[in-house]
């Protein structure tokens, strides 16, 4: 049999309730943004920590976008038939998440009505400037990829799948480089970040896709083959371990540099800071527990447990973004080697804490709700989900 994609009915009370809830949360997020702009001072940012969780939303959403797309489109490139069932939904979600990422930039910048300057004035030495171009083109590529799938244009689909994978890797490495090419902050500077971003994107994107599939198929009473999910879950667990490996190498390398001992002590071993928790929450709940869930035979074949592991990991990857962005700002830089420095008029030279406020959280959560709103409406409007997803796909 071939894969039959079909729209969902979407006329139950539960469906409309879900749409309304998601719409309300989305609206709350934008309201929080408006409130922050109108009243001012409702966020936890400062001149020492100018990038907070709304900024962390940018690489997070892009990761979720790139991740699921890389897996499904790779299956398209290598013509792995059994994963074709996920190809539409992955492309659709990729487009939805990239919108969230672009909106995250819009919410984060100080001058929204200068936003178009980011596209009009290109600075070839600015990685962010390159990304402004990459993000918008990536959205177009995802949309075209989806379109050729709807039209069932086989050769175009394979071509677009290849292009989409290439672009997703480019987009996400570029995003990692925004942070890790900053040489003025030793805690930012790392050549490992871009490849780590790719791994992390795939794990978080895949984790969420697994949960997404499980819940969608369950609520629409469609058939989902556990073997299919099991295969994806193993890829997920393997890459999550590689992520742990990257983190370990990077942390140990930083710890090896005497100049960074104090900073490393602060980041990894000082439990009074949020930075410490962002790292260890990721390691324990984002990596260790999800990997155990997938590898342990009693839970590793249960779709509910796998979904849980996927969601847990994807949620904790947000902590990873926090760990990437915040510590480098919180811990002061040494302006004159060997000298302790304290500013009389600013907070330079001090550890400046950053605690995200509810207003900032609402903006991030609002954007996540927006993506799922786009998803639940999407599955009703477009034929994104197959009738049944089983491992054996018989050739016509």
């Amino acid at each position, binding site marked *: 049999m071939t894969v039959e994609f079909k729209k969902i009915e979407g006329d139950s009370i539960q469906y409309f309730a879900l749409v309304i809830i998601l719409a309300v949360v989305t609206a709350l997020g934008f309201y929080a943004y408006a409130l922050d702009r109108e009243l001012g001072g409702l966020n936890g940012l400062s001149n020492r920590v100018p990038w907070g969780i709304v900024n962390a939303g940018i690489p997070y959403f892009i990761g979720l976008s790139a991740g699921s797309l890389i897996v499904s489109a790779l299956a398209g490139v290598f013509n792995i038939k059994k994963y074709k069932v996920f190809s539409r939904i992955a492309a659709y979600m990729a487009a939805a998440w990239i919108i969230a990422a672009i909106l995250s930039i819009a919410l984060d910048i100080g001058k929204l009505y200068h936003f178009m*300057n980011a596209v009009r004035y290109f600075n070839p030495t600015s990685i962010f400037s390159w990304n402004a171009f990459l993000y918008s083109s990536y959205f177009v590529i995802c949309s075209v990829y989806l379109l050729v799938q709807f039209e069932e244009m086989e050769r175009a689909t394979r071509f677009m799948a290849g292009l989409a994978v290439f672009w997703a890797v480019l987009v996400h490495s570029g995003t990692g480089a925004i942070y890790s090419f900053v040489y003025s902050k030793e805690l930012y500077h790392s050549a490992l970040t871009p490849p780590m971003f790719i791994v992390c994107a795939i794990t978080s994107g895949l984790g969420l896709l697994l949960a997404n599939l499980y819940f969608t198929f369950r609520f629409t009473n469609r058939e989902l083959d556990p073997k299919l999910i099991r295969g994806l879950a193993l890829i997920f667990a393997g890459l999550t371990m590689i992520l742990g490996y990257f983190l370990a190498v990077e942390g140990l390398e930083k710890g090896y540099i005497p100049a960074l001992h104090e900073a490393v002590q602060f980041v990894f071993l000082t439990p009074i800071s949020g930075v410490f928790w962002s790292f260890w929450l990721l390691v324990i709940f984002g990596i260790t527990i999800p990997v155990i869930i997938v590898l342990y035979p009693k839970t590793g074949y249960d779709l509910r447990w796998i979904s849980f592991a996927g969601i847990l990991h994807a949620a904790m990857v947000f902590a990873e973004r926090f760990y990437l962005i915040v510590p480098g700002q919180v811990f002061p830089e040494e302006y004159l080697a060997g000298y*302790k420095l304290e500013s009389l008029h600013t907070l330079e030279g001090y550890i400046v804490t950053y605690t995200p406020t509810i207003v900032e959280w609402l903006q991030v959560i609002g954007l996540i709700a927006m993506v799922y709103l786009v998803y639940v409406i999407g599955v009703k409007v477009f034929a994104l989900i197959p009738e049944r997803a089983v491992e054996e796909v018989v050739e016509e």
Partner: protein
Amino acid sequence: MMSRRKFLLLTGAAAAGAFLIPQISAKTQFVESPEEVKAKRRWAMAVDVEKCTECMEELIAKTGNPEVKPPCVVACDKENNVPEFEDKRIDPQWMRIVKLELDKPEIGPKEFYIPLLCNHCEHPPCVQVCLTQASFKRPDGIVEIDMHRCIGCRYCMIACPYGARSFNFRNPREGLKEVNLNVQMRTEGVVEKCTFCVHRIDEAVAKGEEPIPACVEACHKYGKGALVFGNIKDPNSKISKILRENIVVQLRANLGTDPHVFYTKLGGE
């Protein structure tokens, strides 16, 4: 129902419109060519740490306020419309004084005071990362921000190795008692920093005079004369002489940014 062609035309026109809105640019137009300017002028500042420390020690002893703003900082704030907000976390500051101490508590190290300001680097990381080329370096070495271009993404603040940049979390007018109309006013949501008093420089150069930034002027008038400003392309300038005859220190020189604020006389002879 709109036809597909009409729809495409409309969206295309809208996109083109968004791109093509004319904008005002603050980029300075020189009478001379950039190459000429580059050959003739490169502005820099030298700080005599000994004199600066002396001034600060006296000031703190006199006022009893360990966070007292010396004449240079007060003059900078006033000249450049740098607002004053109670909350240090968001208070923009172009020039600030820092206390330095060797990280060896066992020897009871002496405290030194130095000013921090934008270093107007030869290879400015802020200009490198700026999304819109809002941060730019003039041929005479001054790093400036075009407020009409700045989108407030704060990437430059992350990239600046010297914490020289402040974001306007609030409208600066709220923190100003008076406004100097000679200096461009900023709005909420953009990044600002020291300009070496570029308006004074351009005016002085046009008149054929020696430019003097507000902080340097105040330092010589009310302080100990620790700050020297000038053109290092002119071998006879005072600053060229200082750089020639002293061991000077640039902050975080290992990054290769080549900052143009030089610190001299780091210990009392």
